[in-house]
């Protein structure tokens, strides 16, 4: 941990004039650099494409917008239910399997959305095992019975919710664990039943945290391309690519992306405004041991089933089918190259996770200490990339990189008659930059939430008893931030592991990852062959996910989990 502190320490601003200015300056420069891809996307408005807009408005735009809205609403509703209820139950109650479910509920996080979509289509399709069994069993023919269609907007909502609810679960559980038990006890003594306590006290207290999770979920939903494209649902994102690839206008595609970004920005702003009027604070810092209520009988069974379902459907069922397919194909798919794929994936994900978290710390501290509208705007801007489809971000990364390369190349050509070619474009530096531009939102929001727990009064108390800033950070901030930092690292790790489009288009020659391998095979509609790399992604992602879950369980102050 001490190395991490050394790494972070230089990023903590001190309240002396000069360092403060330097810090603010660096902060703004860094955020501007990180926002370059966004500016590249926005700058597309300089190229007017009126006839394409005319065509879009006349034909498909309404459908794109409508479908995207339905998708957002559906995913928001379903992830909230799938995330919050199990989080509350496993935190507050004991019932069969509840200890296992604490971490098992996070497992779907390891599953890329397009993989779960392909898998469920294979399972539930008219020619899949479930319907075939149904027909064999009942003697019905196709068309004589009703069966839900996977490849529909409802199916897309379900698939995306299965893999995205863990964000809500993770964050709301952390919030429930941190809640002072006193507030809940007071509520109970004032005559609230368990339901009323949950809805009137616990839920409002956790609201800011849940909103953070929900905004991540919605941004990822809007950026999703693989699932909706496969299901044939015309959303805003598929529209972006259709405009680019089909109509051949990358400018109009970038303009659509910019609109998407504005929409997200507006949503975030609205939420921020609506929260301003209500503030929720814990009035007491006394944490007594959480006594989990032991559920019995019908209640225990009900709670068990309710909490099992998301983990079962979001993880176990697809994994079982993937294993079945992998069993058929591993001989030809897993070769010596496969190990290097795994290594590439882990290496990229780990470095991106560390960099994104350190940057997030730097920015979150900056926003805390130098709180003027300009820094706040700069920091919020750099988190916008999460809502933009990866391919569009990738083009936004290529433009500034190629510009710098051209500048250097031109300089060397004129002065030394020597061409340096491309120095940064087509290297892992570009890939890494795209990851940060896209996933900074995840680490930033997580670190921000962690930092918010440290009240300025604690800093003042520390300083007044003569702690140096570095000691303050080591003794007060780090222990309180540890959980949030870990969460940030691991969430970005898992996200990068699953990331596809930006890696695909920016990577150097002869460089592949597990996600690319899985996608290429699945995209050729070779589901069985795609099973091995998909399983490998899941396996690699599971380790940090379980670790994350355990560390959250242990993070409650005053809670001895070894007991």
């Amino acid at each position: 941990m001490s190395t991490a502190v050394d790494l972070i320490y230089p990023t903590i601003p001190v309240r002396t004039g000069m360092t403060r200015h330097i810090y603010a300056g660096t902060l703004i420069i860094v955020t501007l650099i990180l926002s370059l891809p966004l500016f590249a996307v926005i700058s597309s408005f300089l190229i007017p494409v009126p006839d394409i807009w005319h065509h879009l408005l006349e034909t498909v735009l309404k459908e794109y917008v409508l479908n995207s809205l339905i998708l957002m609403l559906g995913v928001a509703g379903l992830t909230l239910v799938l995330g919050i209820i199990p989080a509350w139950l496993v935190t507050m109650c004991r019932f069969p399997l509840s200890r296992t479910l604490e971490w098992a509920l996070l497992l779907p996080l390891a599953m890329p959305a397009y993989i779960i979509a392909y898998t469920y289509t294979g399972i539930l399709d008219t020619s899949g095992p479930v319907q075939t069994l149904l027909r064999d069993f009942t003697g019905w023919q196709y068309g004589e019975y009703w069966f839900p269609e996977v490849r529909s907007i409802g199916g897309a909502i379900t698939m995306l919710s299965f893999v995205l609810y863990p964000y809500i679960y993770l964050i709301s559980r952390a919030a429930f664990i941190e809640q002072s038990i006193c507030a809940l006890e007071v509520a109970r003594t004032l005559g609230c039943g368990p339901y009323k306590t949950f809805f009137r006290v616990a839920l409002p207290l956790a609201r800011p945290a849940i909103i953070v999770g929900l905004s991540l979920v919605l941004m990822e939903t809007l950026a999703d391309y693989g699932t909706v494209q496969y299901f044939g649902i015309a959303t805003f994102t598929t529209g972006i690519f259709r405009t680019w690839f089909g109509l051949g206008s990358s400018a109009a595609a970038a303009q659509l992306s910019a609109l998407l970004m504005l929409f997200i920005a507006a949503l975030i702003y609205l939420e921020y405004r609506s929260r301003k009027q209500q503030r929720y604070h814990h009035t007491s810092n006394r944490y007594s041991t959480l006594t989990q209520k032991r559920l019995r009988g019908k209640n225990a069974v009900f709670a068990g089933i309710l909490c099992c379902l998301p983990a079962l459907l979001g993880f176990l069922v697809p994994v079982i089918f993937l294993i079945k397919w992998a069993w058929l194909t591993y001989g030809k798919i897993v070769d010596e190259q496969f190990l290097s794929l795994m290594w590439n994936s882990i290496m990229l994900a780990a470095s991106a996770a560390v960099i994104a978290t350190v940057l997030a710390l730097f920015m979150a501290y900056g926003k805390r200490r130098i709180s003027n509208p300009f820094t706040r705007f700069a920091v919020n801007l750099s988190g916008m990339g999460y809502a933009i489809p990866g391919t569009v971000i990738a083009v936004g990364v290529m433009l500034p990189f190629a510009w710098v390369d051209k500048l250097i190349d031109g300089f060397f050509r004129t002065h030394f008659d020597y061409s340096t070619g491309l120095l940064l474009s087509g290297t892992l530096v570009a890939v890494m930059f795209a990851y940060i531009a896209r996933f900074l939102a995840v680490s930033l929001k997580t670190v921000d939430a962690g930092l918010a727990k440290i009240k300025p009064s604690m800093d003042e108390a520390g300083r007044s008893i003569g702690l140096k800033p570095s000691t303050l950070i080591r003794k007060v901030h780090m222990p309180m931030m540890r959980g949030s930092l870990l969460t940030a690292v691991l969430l970005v790790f898992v996200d990068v592991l699953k990331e596809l489009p930006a890696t695909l288009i920016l990577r150097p020659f002869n460089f592949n990852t597990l996600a690319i391998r899985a996608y290429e095979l699945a995209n050729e509609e070779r589901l069985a062959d795609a099973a091995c790399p998909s399983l490998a992604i899941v396996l690699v992602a599971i380790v940090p996910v379980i670790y994350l879950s355990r560390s959250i369980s242990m993070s409650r102050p005053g809670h001895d989990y070894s007991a």
Partner: protein
Amino acid sequence: MYMKYRLLLVLSSSILLGPQCQAQNTEVNIYSERKEELIQPLLDRFIADTGIKVNLVTGEGDALIKRLEIEGRNSPADILLTTDVARLYRAKSLELLQPISSDELVNAIPANFRDGEGYWYGLSLRSRVIVYAKDRVNPEQLPTYEAMINPEWKGRICVRSSSNPYNQSLVASMIARNGIEATQAWASGLVKNFARSPRGGDRDQIKAVAVGECDIALVNTYYLGGMLHSDIDDEKQAAEKVALFWPNQNDRGAHFNISGAGISRSAKNQDAAIRLLEFLSGDEAQAWYAEMNHEFPVRPGIAVSDTLQQWGSYIADDINLDQLGQYNADAVRLMDRAGWK
């Protein structure tokens, strides 16, 4: 003094940047829309034969074209390999390709499957055909693409989304042959005959026919071939319930697209790149496309796999493939208007 610095700079930068900017004539760099699985084995053979190193990046066709465009004259790519002719046309019109002349390529590849000026060359053929349920459809009833809008097919047709480039190129070919208005009417009629709103990939359409959700579907041939050889039993059984029909055999022939390649304008390893294209159009590689991915060889007279043979002989539409690129955007607009999702 100045000289000294100059030398130092050049030296240090070449060490720092490594092999990336050293032009070597013993390697070729490819941007490929063909998936690694479907090209790497061929490249490995080329490497073994010639000792020329081949570097590969795969990705979406238009994204690769964008990368080529942004990288400009510094792009390391020598070859752009795509799975559909409209991308090659687009790359050509963005001035990202250069014309090359190679007698071997010209002799190997029929004139309608390569660019007249030598900007790009077709390497394998992919046909979009009709598959039908053997037990419910009499193939005599299925003469042409155009006839699919007849009322007897109401509620019986499956096809994937119009975002798919192969659908776009089929419609582009119809615009080229029949004009925009007739094709607009055709697309609207087709949408009316859909059994379900478009979803899934080509294999899903075949499965839907097999199970009875629809009776005919528009698919690319190699997906059917892949299913017939699938590791999953369900897929195999589904594929065996359907048969392939070559449309328009009494007039212009079935619609064919190509996977093909061109040499980038910025290519630094031209000779090696041309040798690779020649290899990809050679006997060994041509037979491999058919064997591994059930694509048709672009070269006439290559022995094809049993699977392809059992589909019988066909007449291919000999349209100028450039037109598929020219009408691509029109095709998309037209399908938008027709409500083909």
